[in-house]
């Protein structure tokens, strides 16, 4: 699976309509064994890339959602304390060394995403979501893991990777990532899709969306994105909106301007934006949609 066309095809069958550069990125991931860093506005489908990648490789997706204060015990491994306590109780009076050996064995180890990802039989896709939300320290730790693919657990020893996962990192740019991490990764900037591609995405994802309606919706959203909005609608919002319109049995946007305006709530997520997109603005934009 090194061929770009094959990858694009496989992505398409899994429901992800990629631009040609993304296929290159994925083929490079395999060739160079580097993680892929995806940046882009919220809602452009960064997480979807990882999901699609997992289905392309027909493998498991292991997801690590980052947040402030995320630490090793939540990301890497933890001991199953309750079980250890129970075990100590049950073996009271036994040889203490034996008990200790027992409670610090694999059986009592809880795998967290990072550890799980390197101990699978088949390389999984490891999605490290919103890495920019994690702290600097965690980023440094991650860097180490991503270069060595081994984890040392003091009580147990070093766990080496049985397999190197396909690593995808996403970032929304709320914090500047370290240069070291950026350098280790392949970089791909996920932009809002153009109208054509967005229309194809709608058709792939929403049952019952006709080609003409999809294109209309995509063009309309493209126009809305050009308005000065606080929160620009992403692809996920477009899909919501398309689903709403299909559900309300709209065949052509021009036939139902009222419905169009009322369902804009799927796209506009702040009060301010809602106020900005008045009825006449909707109509003006609708006029631009052929």
């Amino acid at each position: 699976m090194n061929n770009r066309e094959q990858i694009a095809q496989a992505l398409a069958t899994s429901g992800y309509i990629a631009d040609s550069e993304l296929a290159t990125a994925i083929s490079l991931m395999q060739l160079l064994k580097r993680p892929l860093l995806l940046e882009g506005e919220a809602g452009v489908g960064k997480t979807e890339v990882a999901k699609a990648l997992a289905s392309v490789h027909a493998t498991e997706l292991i997801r690590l959602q980052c947040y402030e204060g995320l630490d090793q015990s939540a990301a890497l491994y933890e001991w199953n304390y309750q079980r250890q306590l129970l075990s100590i109780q049950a073996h009271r009076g036994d040889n203490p060394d034996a008990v200790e050996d027992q409670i610090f064995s694999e059986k009592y180890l809880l795998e967290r995403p990072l550890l799980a990802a390197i101990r699978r039989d088949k390389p999984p896709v490891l999605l490290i979501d919103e890495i920019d939300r994690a702290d600097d320290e965690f980023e440094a730790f991650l860097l180490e893991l991503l270069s060595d693919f081994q984890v040392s657990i003091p009580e147990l020893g070093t766990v080496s990777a049985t397999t190197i996962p396909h690593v995808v990192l996403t970032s929304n740019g709320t914090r500047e990532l370290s240069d070291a991490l950026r350098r280790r990764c392949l970089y791909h900037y996920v932009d809002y899709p153009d109208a054509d591609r967005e229309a194809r995405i709608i058709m792939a994802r929403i049952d019952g969306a006709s080609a003409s309606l999809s294109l209309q919706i995509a063009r309309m959203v493209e126009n809305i994105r050009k308005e000065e909005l606080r929160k620009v609608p992403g692809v996920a919002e477009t899909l919501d909106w398309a689903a709403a319109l299909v559900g309300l049995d709209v065949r052509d946007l021009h036939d139902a301007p009222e419905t169009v305006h009322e369902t804009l709530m799927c796209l506009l997520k702040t009060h301010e934006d809602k106020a900005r997109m008045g009825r006449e603005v909707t109509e003006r934009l609708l006029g631009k949609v052929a």
Partner: protein
Amino acid sequence: MSCCGPVPDVGEADELARLVSSKLAAFLNTLRESGFAVGLAEGRDAAALMTSGYVAKPGLLRSAFKHLFSARKSDWERFDGIFDAFWLGKRVRSRSTTIGSAKAANNPSLKGMPGNRTEPRTGGDTTTDQVPSADGADADRGGQGRMEGASRADNLAEVDFRKLADPEQIEEAHAAAARLAQTMRTRLTRRDLARRRGYRLDLRRTIHSNISHGGVPISLVRRRRKEKPLRLVVLLDASGSMSMYTGVFLRFIHGVLDEFREAEAFLFHTRLAHVSDAMKEKDAARALDRLSIMAQGAGGGTKIGESLQTFNRWHAARVIHSRTCVMIVSDGYETGDAALLGREMAALGRRCRRIVWLNPMMAWEGYAPEAAGIKAALPHIDLYAPANTLKSLTALEPYLAKL
């Protein structure tokens, strides 16, 4: 190299490989000079890519290299241009028409770059000028170049920016503003260090840390004040009425932000944009290029109040602490609600240490702060100063140093 037709004999193959790798090394250098973080590992991977069929089509290689060498959005966006310039010999799209260098058209194509490269920056060298103008300017930058710059600046020091018509002059003013910002920065830093020396002895700690010497005070511990460094937050009005001044100020701010210990910059016209990232671009012309796009106000008008509201609501908590000086550069012509501006200024004043308002129009003959906007804002301003000439900008320095 699978794409090269008949298989060359061993000697030729070596020669070819050597050529390719030297060309690749030159490309990596070009990228580094353009601010890409390219290490050895990337070079190795690039070489691997060149032998793996990616060379077959330039478009494919470009896309592959783009993923490999880019590390952030700004890299991502300008990579194609650099690649084309280097490998395909196309000239770089002429930079910056509105604000940047007046000699944009003379920019040498990147292809020529490895030849006339400027000296690499050395660690402690704070005098390095970031202004990438073509020919000439490079030469008078080293050594006594700074002296000359200062004397040249004298002629311009008292000329109102809007009276500069000649592109050469404008370019000089821009460069002078950048230099000024840099000297201000270094002097501020030095003053900070000078003051820190000579703090009094901390007896308790001295005794404690010398217990191991039996109480003989061999190593002295001095009292130190823990200081958060001064932070400068600049809000620049980029509306139409300020257009004659925006260019110079952008250059000035770029200079101040560049390596200033802590600084943030925002642009506003009818809305607010956070531009620190663009400003941190090392290459001034490129930074300004990016900014000039953001600076183009959508429609007319300046909504200072609304922009400040956005700032207070979304950014202030993050960028302002108790040692922050907020510098607003605007003519104060508010087209929105002046009362809102007053309220937001008050809110801002409560958060930060000082508010400096620079108004280029203040020095105009017969100017009085009568615009509703500036009237509402005045009570909350700590320093209201003109800033229409380089001299008036220089006058700010002691004030900033006092913070």
